């Protein structure tokens, strides 16, 4: 019997019993495949607000009558990771808050959400900062871009033990600051390089002042990557100037930007890591995703008609709880038909930075295998 059912089986619990119940468990309470959310406080209604596609975006809590304890029970598949907020309604006031009983928080550029980890999910330890791991350094650059007619900041990651007399692969990361901050990409690079799971590599973290336009299959952005950024980096740093040692990483619109840049200059970027790509397309009629998606849909429709062979190897990931899953699944056979070596991975997660963090090891080590089997220091 679930803990919440035991609490209420003899009628409304007394305040001390409620305190005991809340103190005795961590919340949300995971019992096998069942999760129990709890909220204690005065309210007219309490709802769970989440972003799981296919599940009503709001789930109502029940109140144990005669108490101020609210709860919601539902099934959650193993290894799921779900971000959420609570909506507390008092009169005509609706407040969205993080779960006061849950210390686990996932941050993103818009703030933070509470997060529940289902049975079997663990935050990957390779994303943590480890004291005994040699650290790479970030070197800041500002690049004058003729394409955009402005200056662009670029953070360049140089691996630990960087040497000028050695050549390195290059990875360019869209939304670079967010990948560092919310997906722990720098710590992940340090760890995976230290463990020899990926080679020592140079990583350029780029950001856009207008990502929803510039990452939406904008030719200027593709030209910026192909004609300005990478040539400049190849002049500045000891890079292996070969497609197999040149990669693009991006999530959501960043994945569109990556695919579009590779498609515009086929074979130049031999490695693509596309996470939760916003691969919206139409077979007939208009799309319903708003005007920001117009150029994306136009590009994807064109791409589907004439994909060429944009790259050599493509690692594609997507959460099963996000609406993009259907587009991503649809694109797999098309990507494969281009002759690219494609690996597609799904995870029980949503459209968020921690989902993208959790897939980095698998994606990076597949695209850029390290000398794990050969180096014993």
């Amino acid at each position, binding site marked *: 019997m679930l803990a919440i059912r035991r609490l209420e089986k003899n009628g409304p619990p007394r305040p001390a019993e409620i305190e005991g119940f809340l103190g005795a468990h961590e919340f949300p309470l995971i019992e096998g495949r069942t999760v129990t959310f709890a909220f204690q406080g005065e309210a007219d209604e309490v709802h769970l607000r989440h972003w799981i596609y296919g599940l009503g975006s709001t789930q109502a809590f029940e109140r144990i009558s005669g108490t101020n304890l609210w709860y919601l029970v539902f099934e959650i598949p193993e290894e799921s990771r779900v971000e959420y907020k609570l909506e507390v309604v008092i009169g005509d006031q609706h407040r969205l808050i993080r779960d006061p009983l849950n210390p686990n928080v996932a941050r993103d550029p818009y703030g933070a959400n509470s997060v529940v980890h289902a049975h079997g999910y663990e935050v990957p330890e390779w994303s943590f900062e480890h004291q005994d791991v040699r650290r790479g350094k970030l070197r800041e650059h500002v690049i004058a871009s003729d394409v955009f007619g402005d200056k662009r900041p670029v953070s360049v990651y140089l691996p630990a033990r960087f040497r000028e007399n050695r050549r390195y692969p290059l990875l360019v990361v869209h939304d670079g600051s967010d990948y560092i901050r919310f997906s722990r990409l720098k710590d992940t690079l340090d760890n995976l390089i230290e463990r020899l*799971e990926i080679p020592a590599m140079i990583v350029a973290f780029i950001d856009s002042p207008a990502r929803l336009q510039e990452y939406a299959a904008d030719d200027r952005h593709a030209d910026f990557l192909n004609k300005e950024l990478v040539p400049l980096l190849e002049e500045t740093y000891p890079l292996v100037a070969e497609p197999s040692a040149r990669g693009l990483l991006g999530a959501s619109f960043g994945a569109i930007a990556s695919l579009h840049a590779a498609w515009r200059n086929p074979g130049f970027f031999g490695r693509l890591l596309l996470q939760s790509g916003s691969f919206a397309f139409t077979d007939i009629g208009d799309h319903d995703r708003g005007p920001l998606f117009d150029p994306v849909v136009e590009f994807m429709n064109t791409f589907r008609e004439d994909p060429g062979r944009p790259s050599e190897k493509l690692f594609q990931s997507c959460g099963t709880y996000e609406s993009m899953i259907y587009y991503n699944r649809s694109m797999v056979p098309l990507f494969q038909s281009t002759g690219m070596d494609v690996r597609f991975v799904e995870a029980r997660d949503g459209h968020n930075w921690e989902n993208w963090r959790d897939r980095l*090891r*698998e994606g990076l080590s597949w695209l850029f295998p390290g000398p794990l*089997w*050969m180096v*014993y*220091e």
Partner: protein
Amino acid sequence: MVTKAKTNPGGWNRIVLLGPQRRKPTLAEAVAEHIGPRGMLAAITAGWEEREDEDQELSDHLGGRVRNLRIHARVEQIFERDPKLFEAMQRRHHRLRYLQDLYRRRLGHMLDSAREFMRLEDPEDEGEKLLLDEQREDAMGAIRRLDEQHLAAIAGVHARFRENHRIPDRKSIVHHKEELRTILGDAAGLCIAGGHVAVLLNRVRLFDLLELWPDRPLFAWSAGAMILADRTVVFHDTPPQGPGNAEVLEVGLGAFHGVIPLPHARKRLKLDDPLRVKLFARRFAPHACIALDDETGVTWNGKRWIGRAGTEILTVDGTLDPARKR
């Protein structure tokens, strides 16, 4: 005693294999024990590749008595002056990779089969248990035979390469060998560091370095220890990609027989998984598979192997046995 006494083809009286030296170095202690405070120590750091000459830390640890043989740099020089040899080595490299790929394809199926038999519960009926044990042993035997065939094929590639390109007396190599012979003649001991195991092995082998080495103490750790064995086994139970099947990579230099050094074993192997440990130990038996982690090591004293405190050996029962303390 870690393993039964084996013949030592180099005839050396002292081989010291140590665990990784980065975090908790024990090399200086071993050198003090086997050589004492005086005498130049020759060093090979070719496994560090382009960082070969960044040996200050090693030198400081050993009190400044190190002379680096610069094996990596010497081979780079040879490649520059003898492009035909470079091309030949590239061709050999591709051939060995192809051979490894073919071996890997067979090995995966064989290991799956051996694991499946090992996981099967023992039948209650004695006769059936005997039949299952026979199948288990046969599956293991097939893997051993494959490993041996693979070693023989690799040895064939090397033999043809040496003969076709007259490696022992090739002009571009010979004068380096003479220099190395002189340096090694003055050395009280030879230290071989880890790093990239294939780079290290190929570069050391080009000079037939062990033939130049007199009977003095030899210290090696990590990849350095691996290349001295009669076979070089690469291993990782939990790689981010692939099944994690240990592979015979190369014919080693054969400074000793009967021992397979496993540096960073605690990180690389699931030593708490009896089935994996058992499979590893049985596959390579009668070789002793020695876990070489921080502050561990084994020493060949001319008659037998002796383990440092804390050194462990993988057993055919799937457990770890401590090597005897000195």
